């Protein structure tokens, strides 16, 4: 469905008086999400997840690289021509409150894109109403009680469902969910995740899930791929469960080690990895990007940049000179 090769994005931060500072948000990222497939991006704050998601949804430009949607290379198209392609990819925002216009009812919110569709395909007005009800039912909302409401009259979970319903009005082939559950109450979170999974299964839309919480990534689909991103570079990529169970990159390992252990239910992992602090000072561009914080770094790490590759007979791709499996995640008590 969508393929990217070597996507680079550099922000020039203007306004700072001390000259323009460059932020390398993405440093040559390859990705590929098949039709109906799932992918998850995880990584620390500021690693470039959102940037990549926005680029994929066509909301942000990129400096280098190529993105192809359904085989059509975007760079060969004019901005106007790209739009219909990118419309197939809809973004679902982290904050469901700001993603809905507080002055517009759910009905109005759904109506606008639907009437655009109706205009394009020559459908009638009644189709609009029907379709609005339909997409709401798809996301598990009762159209009758929700349509006339304003966003502030809905709970976080309902709002997020409306956001998803709105995305569905244009029959997207892919949904980009950026931290789509992080602002939703814990008890409702799973509902949204299940919904996304359900949509994937029933409608065949692919889902790109962006999160810093690895566990949630599992719930979108265990057949999906996990991309671990560090400072704009994908450093490990593979099937979700493989990476969770057997991470090989020290960064992935430290990320997984940081997940709190539910002490009543779980046993901590045997070899948790803690990165060397601090993150802020060491922003070396030389060698491996993680070298400064890596407890296992070797000599090579500070001079040479490891690239993402399949190596050492491991099932996943990784960008580490010294990959080693470590058992870092907590296991349920019942298993041990």
């Amino acid at each position, binding site marked *: 469905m969508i393929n990217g090769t070597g996507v680079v994005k550099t922000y020039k931060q203007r306004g700072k008086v001390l000259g323009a500072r460059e932020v390398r948000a993405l440093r040559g990222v390859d990705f590929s999400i098949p039709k109906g497939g799932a992918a998850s991006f995880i990584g620390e704050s500021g690693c470039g997840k959102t940037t990549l998601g926005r680029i994929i*949804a*066509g*909301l942000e430009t990129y400096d280098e690289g190529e993105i192809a949607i359904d085989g059509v290379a975007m760079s060969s198209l004019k901005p106007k021509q790209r*739009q*219909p392609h*990118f*419309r197939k990819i*809809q*973004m679902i*925002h*982290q*904050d469901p409150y*700001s*993603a*809905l*216009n*507080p*002055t*517009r*009812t759910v*009905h*109005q919110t759904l*109506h*606008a*894109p639907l*009437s*655009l569709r109706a205009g394009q395909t020559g459908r009638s*007005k009644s189709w*609009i109403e029907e379709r609005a009800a339909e997409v709401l039912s798809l996301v598990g909302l009762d159209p009758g009680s929700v*349509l*006339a409401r304003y966003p*502030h*009259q809905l709970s976080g979970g309902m709002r997020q469902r409306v*956001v998803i319903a*709105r*995305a569905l*009005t*244009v029959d997207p082939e892919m949904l980009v969910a950026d931290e789509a559950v992080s602002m939703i109450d814990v008890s409702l979170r799973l509902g949204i995740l299940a919904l996304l999974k359900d949509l994937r299964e029933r409608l065949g839309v692919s889902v790109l899930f962006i999160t810093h919480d690895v566990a949630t990534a599992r719930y979108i689909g265990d057949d999906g791929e996990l991309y671990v991103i560090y400072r704009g570079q994908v450093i490990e990529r593979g099937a979700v469960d493989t990476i969770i169970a057997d991470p090989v990159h020290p960064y992935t390992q430290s990320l997984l080690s940081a997940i709190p252990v539910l002490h009543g239910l779980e046993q901590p992992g045997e070899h948790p990895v803690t990165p060397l602090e601090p993150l802020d000072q060491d922003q070396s561009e030389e060698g491996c990007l993680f070298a400064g914080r890596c407890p296992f770094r070797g000599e090579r790490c500070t001079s040479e940049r490891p690239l993402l590759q399949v190596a050492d007979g491991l099932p996943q791709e990784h960008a580490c000179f010294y990959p080693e499996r470590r058992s870092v995640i907590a296991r349920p008590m019942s298993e041990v």
Partner: protein
Amino acid sequence: MSVLLEGSSTSAAMRRNFWTGVWRVMRRKPTRLVGAVLMLGFVFMGLFGPLFYPDPLPRDPGQLTRPPSWQHWLGTDDQGRDVIALVVTGSRYVLLAALVTAVITVVLGTGIGLFSGFKRGRWDTVLMRFTDMKLTIPGLPLLLVLSTVWKFNSAVQMGLVLGLLSWGGVARAVRSQTLSLRERGFIEAARGLGLSTTHIVGKELLPSMAPYIAMNMLIAITGGVYSQVGLFFLGVLPYESNNWGQMLNTAVFRSGALTIPSALGFLLGPLLAILLLTLAIVLVVDAMDEIFNPRLREE
């Protein structure tokens, strides 16, 4: 077509909600009711006030510049006309010009601010530099200099010029609002859905800013009143036979209102009118602040 549908039950309900909200806010502080009533009073005065008096106003050559009396509550002017009659009949010019000012200020300011904030990039830079420059040039001195070049022949022209000079602040404010709204997910979502710019600006951005724009409009009205009355007061505008500013000018510089109390009524008439108008607008803006506050609508 979409307009038709949207005008259906939901927006009617919204309107009903809105007015009950307005009423609630009004009731909470009686001063706001006073403001609204005063405001309506001024509108009425501008629309119908002149109809209550003959044109030209009756004058009494034996009663030139007299202090307040039972017959003339605020006294008479230097032509022997009743000051209250002058204030009432003079309100039309003043308010009309102010309205034109406000409309132009708000339309230009909103338009430029929206465009600038929405397009960003080069246009934004150019427009904002221009706006900054406009804001740097002081309005009153510029008006004074302009008044020698421009012939302000009617209230509409007056309003036009004032409006052209005063959109800067609104433009800047609207731009920053637009910029911050842009960052809100719903605008980005609309773009992602392929909705037209017209829809985004007209249906998503503008309604969110409507209260803000409405308040600016009210404030621009006062601005319009003050500038023109001030210019008339300084005597740099063509004579108007009855106009608040002209009254101030004549009262002070010709009839000696600041020297002898007998012309004070003549001075106080327009001053009180301006004070009351300011009060009305202050109170209404204060109420609007709350009416449009989404948190209060939630309750």
